[in-house]
């Protein structure tokens, strides 16, 4: 069923791509005829969606018009379309492929359970009941000794083992993406075994009933050291996407500003639009494209996760995804001004690259450090500090949320610090932009940037 789903998703993407391609061809072939018709057309006959969209733009004034142009130009770009499809495929693969480890039997997962010692009929019934409640089917694999059980776990012949009815043994935690064991079933079996032991010990007297009620699950021991507390796979994927999207969209801003400067169109625009409106429109337009793309990715991730039964919806993963989405917005809001100011100082592509390198250092640092911490699951005090430092907060706070190490007020405090820093950065960037964007023919010195006069 899951394989079918993947095929359906890929087919849907291909169909969307083909539809866009054919629509573009149709548009091109009809353009000349449309043009003739357009010149004679009544106002009311103009395309309604376009008119509606233009009305939305107009409602936001010059900023809306600038943002609208940015959105249209970006959505029209092949790089954006191809990039979105690649990211969708990557996210889909990251969610679907781990679930393929689990074999399918009519939509349920077959769980091979090694058994060391004798499994009483009551215990056996309880394990089967747990499997049913987790939509699993079970195959018991009798194993003579614990050593054999361990080797069976390593070879994958069994997914987890029940040792003498008082312990559950796995090769690695069931929550790991590469583990074939169903975490829900493992936990439930462990709880039931605890109940059985409690019943046995209590002999069903009143006091024993209380003992049954308060029974605790037996420990789940693993051969490989547990990575308890590490961020889940979707959280790490989210960090990677956050990094890719932040760098991509901020680079768009930088190149866009540089191109307007090098093509000199900025002089025409600034003759009628204020610098802050032009810059604000550009930032808003590209930001909305970024947010749209991110929402699409998160939507697909959650939808696909629910469809294939991925652990994307379990535990703190959805919260982590939402935190990453929020930090994409906050991180973009902070960095877009930095990159815009840098773009206004460049006139050529090589200058953009020279400027982009130092700007990317805090992003790269935050990203690499966060991936490391997300994998180890053990942030230190310095990392906690970085979660409140605006240039690294998008990555660090997202990981802390994914690890369940941040409270809501810590999240809010970090966001507020970031917003305040963004406001300061916006003012500084506008000042630099105004002074630098009309100066051509040489590198703009710091003296000029912070001089009393502009251009």
């Amino acid at each position, binding site marked *: 069923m899951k394989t079918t789903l993947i095929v359906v998703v890929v087919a849907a993407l291909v169909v969307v791509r083909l539809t866009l391609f054919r629509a573009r061809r149709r548009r091109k072939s009809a353009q*000349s005829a449309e043009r003739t018709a357009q010149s004679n057309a009544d106002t009311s006959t103009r395309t309604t969606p376009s008119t509606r969209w233009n009305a939305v733009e*107009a409602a936001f004034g010059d900023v809306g*018009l600038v943002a609208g142009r940015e959105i249209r130009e970006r959505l029209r770009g092949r790089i954006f379309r191809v990039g979105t499809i690649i990211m969708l495929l990557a996210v889909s693969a990251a969610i679907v492929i781990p679930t393929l480890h689990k074999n399918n039997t009519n939509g349920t997962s077959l769980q091979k359970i090694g058994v060391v010692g004798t499994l009483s009929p009551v215990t056996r019934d309880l394990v089967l009941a747990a499997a049913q409640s987790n939509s699993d089917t079970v195959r018991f694999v009798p194993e003579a000794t614990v050593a054999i059980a361990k080797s069976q776990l390593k070879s994958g012949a069994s997914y987890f083992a029940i040792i003498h009815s008082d312990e559950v043994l796995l090769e690695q935690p069931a929550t790991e993406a590469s583990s074939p064991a169903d975490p829900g079933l493992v936990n439930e079996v462990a709880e039931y075994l605890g109940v059985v032991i409690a019943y046995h010990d209590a002999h069903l007297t009143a006091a024993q009933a209380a003992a049954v009620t308060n029974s605790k699950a037996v420990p789940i021991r693993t051969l490989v050291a547990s990575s308890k507390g590490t961020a889940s796979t979707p959280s790490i994927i989210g960090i990677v996407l956050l990094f890719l999207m932040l760098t991509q969209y901020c680079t768009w801003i930088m190149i866009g500003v540089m191109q307007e400067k090098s*093509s000199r169109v900025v002089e*025409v625009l600034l*003759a*009628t639009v204020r610098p802050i409106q032009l810059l604000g429109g550009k930032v808003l337009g590209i930001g909305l494209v970024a947010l749209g793309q991110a929402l699409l990715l998160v939507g697909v991730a959650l939808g696909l996760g629910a469809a294939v039964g991925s652990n994307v919806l379990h535990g703190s993963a959805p919260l982590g995804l939402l935190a990453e989405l929020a930090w994409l917005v906050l991180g973009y809001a902070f960095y877009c001004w930095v990159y815009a100011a840098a773009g206004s100082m460049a006139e050529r592509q090589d200058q953009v690259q020279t400027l982009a390198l130092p700007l990317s250092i805090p992003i790269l640092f935050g990203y690499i450090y966060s991936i490391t911490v997300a994998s180890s699951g053990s942030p230190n005090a310095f990392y906690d500090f970085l979660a409140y430092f605006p240039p690294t907060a998008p990555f660090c706070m997202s990981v802390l949320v994914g690890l369940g190490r941040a409270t809501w007020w810590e999240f809010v405090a970090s966001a507020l610090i970031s917003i305040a820093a963004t406001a300061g950065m916006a003012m500084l960037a506008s000042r630099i932009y105004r002074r630098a964007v*009309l100066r051509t023919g040489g590198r703009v010195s710091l003296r000029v940037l912070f001089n009393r*006069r502009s*251009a």
Partner: protein
Amino acid sequence: MSDLLVLQGLRRSYGDVVALNDLSFEVAAGQVVGFLGPNGAGKTTTMRAIFGLTDLDAGSVLWNGRPVGHADRRRFGYMPEERGLYPGMLVGQQLEYLGRLHGLSLHDAAEATSTWLERLEVADRRDSKVEVLSHGNQQRVQLAAALGHNPDLLVLDEPLSGLDPAGIDAIGKVLVEQARNGCCVLLSSHQLDMMEELCDSVTIIDHGRLVVSGSVDELATSGARRLQVRVEGDRNGDWANALAGVTVSERTGGAVRILLEDSVDSDVVLRAAMMAGRVTEFTFTRRRLSEVFREALE
């Protein structure tokens, strides 16, 4: 009340370089005003100051008696010296976008785009990207961008540079028509012959300072009397150099243009010319704009 742009005591320096030095002049509605000066005289800085693109050390730019504001600038049209359009954007979409930034509705912007592309003979390039157009056509599109919103003031920095004669004629015609319809038109150019034909008045600046200002007719008839004399076999006018009170101002197309001081009798000049060879032309002429320009900067 007709519109009036007043530039009052503009001063601007870049370090030790003085770009504008107490510059003042006016551009009245219905007139094409030529803004002349050698390279680096401060023309572009002045034009940028009108649009608030450069900060001034002193002075003010007034529109109808009030300092120019953002709303006023939306009613101005600007064509900068270094042309500015989005290279990868379609011509039609670009003009509509710029028109809307100037306050036009979508419908009006589309209509104005069609009208001006038609007028400037580039309607067939509406769906082309700007980067694939020839220099001349890019120039026309740039002018359409400045004209699309029917501006009250047109400021054009070197609009005629790089154009073929047909292009110059087409653009010149449009500019004169705009002025006659009540627009203030200020344009700079180094093509002085064309400017003489196009402009009603000129303002000449040098080192950021006003040197000469006035109507083309006034300037043409002012100054010393001048003769255009053509003598067969003589292209240099050496015969005139020997005459007292006579100065050769220009040698052009085999003829010489000479300035006469008040005391000089033109008959004396004619006799000297006849002594040098057969005289095929001997005409009192108006002062050319190129002469006004050259003499102003001497």
